[in-house]
């Protein structure tokens, strides 16, 4: 019944409702580059994901938490002599060896109080206080339009998951897709519901966007996903990552995506607890890469968490809330196969507050070092994306072509 393209369906940000019909605005893609943010909620222990096994002080700090050396049974996956990936991350290791995965270590945002919830708010706001919009939303809004008079790229971003994370919330409309379980009524009833809600500032835009996004998702999934997972696996991170990849790959699909993965708050029995979310992350990144096909070559994925965990293991074979941690940068556009770090060391005097891995790289300089060149954002645009305080210097050389 519609001749609108999928991209047009997704770009319905200026949709107006008239008697139950939705008119959609059209725009062409402003960029063929893709950027994905994965938020790890709960504070990933960076020194377990990327273990500094070459540091002589590591073993004494956390004797029960260090996997066997590279080459041994269930040992670390070596990253060039000093660092090793957690043994669960075999697919990420293959990506590293293909120079498509970059590790940034001893990284942290500008927040030091160790509250998950404040830290996540600041991480996603990109500021030293909670804002009502996230830095990724502001980045999309600041992307240059393809041509004068062209619709801004703002709607070509999608949150894949049951809700839109703060990092992607803001004044610029974004899409949202997730698998769902209830039976659906007829299209006409949705239209009636939309009409009754269209004037409402909260429910109206949400329902309009939800209808648009489901339509797009159904088309992409229907054509591109042959072996869709069943049951609870449909909602798991690898399935969401795969779906995100299918939508990002589409020529008329979104260019920006955000996903979330929890399960990192490992206060107890960390060795047992961490393997599962790390496997999810590892499988998910690989699923994203596979689903994106050729578009992977134009892709950058930033995997970040709100803070790290204590350098010493605590009294229950876990770790408590800490400071610096690791960030992953993956994608075909990444100058990978390296660990980028100004390693602070783990001797007693080198720990932050005698407790945590000390932060030596600002997470915002990683983010700006990626989105600046990759999304063609000017220095002044970057100050609106990460406002307040002294401007952070973007890290250079993270991308293959910048």
């Amino acid at each position, binding site marked *: 019944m519609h001749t609108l393209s999928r991209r047009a369906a997704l770009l319905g940000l200026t949709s107006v409702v008239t008697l139950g019909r939705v008119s959609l605005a059209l725009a062409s893609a402003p960029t063929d580059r893709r950027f994905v943010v994965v938020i790890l*909620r*709960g504070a990933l222990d960076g020194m377990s994901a990327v273990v500094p096994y070459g540091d002589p002080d590591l073993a004494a700090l956390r004797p029960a938490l260090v996997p066997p050396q590279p080459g041994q049974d269930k040992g670390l996956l070596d990253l060039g002599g000093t660092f090793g990936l957690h043994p669960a991350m075999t697919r990420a290791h293959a990506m590293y060896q293909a120079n498509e995965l970059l590790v940034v270590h001893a990284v942290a945002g500008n927040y030091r*109080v*160790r*509250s*998950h*919830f*404040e830290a996540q708010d600041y991480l996603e706001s990109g500021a030293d206080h909670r804002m*009502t919009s996230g830095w990724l939303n502001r980045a999309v809004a600041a992307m240059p339009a393809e041509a004068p008079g062209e619709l801004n790229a703002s709607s070509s971003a999608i*949150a894949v998951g*049951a*809700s*839109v994370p703060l990092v992607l*919330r803001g004044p610029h409309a974004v*899409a*949202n*897709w*997730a698998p*769902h*379980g*209830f*039976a*659906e*009524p007829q299209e006409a*009833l*949705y239209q*009636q*519901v939309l*009409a*009754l*809600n269209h004037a*409402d500032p*909260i*429910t*109206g835009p*949400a*329902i309009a*966007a*939800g*209808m*648009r*996004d*489901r339509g797009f998702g159904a088309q992409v999934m229907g054509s591109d996903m042959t072996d869709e997972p069943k049951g609870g696996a449909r909602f798991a991170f690898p399935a969401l990552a795969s779906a995100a990849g299918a939508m990002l790959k589409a020529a008329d699909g979104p260019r920006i995506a955000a996903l979330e993965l*929890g399960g990192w*708050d490992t*206060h*107890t029995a960390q060795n047992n607890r961490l393997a599962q979310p790390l496997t999810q992350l590892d499988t998910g990144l690989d699923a994203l890469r596979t689903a994106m096909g050729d578009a992977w070559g134009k892709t950058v994925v930033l995997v970040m968490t709100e803070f790290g965990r204590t350098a010493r293991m*605590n*009294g*229950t074979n*876990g770790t*408590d*809330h800490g400071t610096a941690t690791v960030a992953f940068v993956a994608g075909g556009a990444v100058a990978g196969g390296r660990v980028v770090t100004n390693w602070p060391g783990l001797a007693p005097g080198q720990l932050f*507050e005698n*407790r945590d891995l000390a932060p030596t790289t600002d997470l915002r300089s990683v983010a700006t070092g990626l989105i600046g060149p990759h999304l063609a954002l000017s220095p002044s645009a970057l100050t609106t994306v990460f406002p307040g305080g002294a401007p952070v210097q973007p890290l250079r050389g993270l991308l293959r072509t910048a």
Partner: protein
Amino acid sequence: MYSPAMDLRTAHALIRFGMGPTGAGTPPADPSAWLLSQLQQPDSPSVGPEPNLAEGLAALREDRENKPPPGQSRSRALYQAQGLAAVGRAVSTTTPFRERLVWFWTNHFTVSLRHGRCAALAGSFVADAIRPHVTGRFQDMVLAVMRHPAMLVYLDNAQSVGPDSEGGMRSHRGLNENLARECMELHTLSPASGYTQADVTAFARILTGWSIEVNNEPQGFIFRPRIHEPGEQTLMGRTFPDGEAGGIEALTFLANHPATHRFLATRLVCHFAADTPPPGAVRHIEGILRDTKGDLGAAAAGLVSLNDTWTPGAKLRTPLDLVVASFRALDVPADPPPPYLGILSGLGQPLWTAPAPNGWSDIAADWSGPEAMMRRIDWAYAVSGRIGERDPMTIADASLGPLTRPETHDAMARAGSRREALTLLFTSPEFQRR
């Protein structure tokens, strides 16, 4: 036909402070007096037996011995029975203001099935640590919460060991600061109070030994001197004594701290007035908490007296609010119970399974994502299949009264079926709010 049985103020009282009107109920004549009287009454009875700690601990023991496959544990069965009953009680309660307070404080002191052992203990947590105290003293609620096995398990304190204690020196185990931090951050002071890492560590030391006993009598909370960090501790400039008494004193201090009163007032006003709490309203409730030494009944009465809590529709219903209000509007028979737990999971708010210790969000922005709203529509259509031969307009009058907008009435009147008319009611912006 459209002569609503209740006025605007009554409808609002039932929706904002209660759990939504029931189709069969008689609206109160004086809504403020009706709300205040509930603060003096006992809870309306539970659906089925009230959960108790002994059966939760028995389930944990049984599962530890039998090692059942996932999903078939005794703990899981207990959660499903108690969870169904808990939602059923919210649907059927005749003291809905009290019931809302129970859900509010349960969320404030979140325990979550994200920690496996909480499945067996969450029902008892609500029954034993929250429900008895919703109109009592906050310090009593804090103490009951911090001694309940569900909280001690969820935030790992049961395993925390004083490094210099007898048990710590022998086992080389030590502190786990999870509960201490979240108690200060989420339950009492909030980070705005300016505590430091040293305070968190000191409080974690104070709480060592606060543990649980699953096997031997007496079961439940136990203070284990062998793993308690010996010596006085300094928390926020105050010195607290060694032993269990130090923990009780520290919790009493935190519960009555001015920063705690401000934080609780902010949370309460956010829940009962608006997503952005009006500062004057927060000061008013904060003052009540200060002057009454944390009397939660007085704070609840104060909320009723505020003008800011009487603006209709200022809050978006959470999935739980929406499901309970819909079933109340439908007067669904209690037996067999609707599949509440699956519904809440499908709508993104699985019962007693918040993702993190800060509980479920209380603001619209976190519940109004596009896909989340679509699921509400799909579920509204599903539940509207229960309408049978009833008149959807009657349900609108009973559940929203004068809050129903004319355009919703018109759309319902034009709908192709009773079911579609009810779907339009349940998905209307006025029904999505409280």
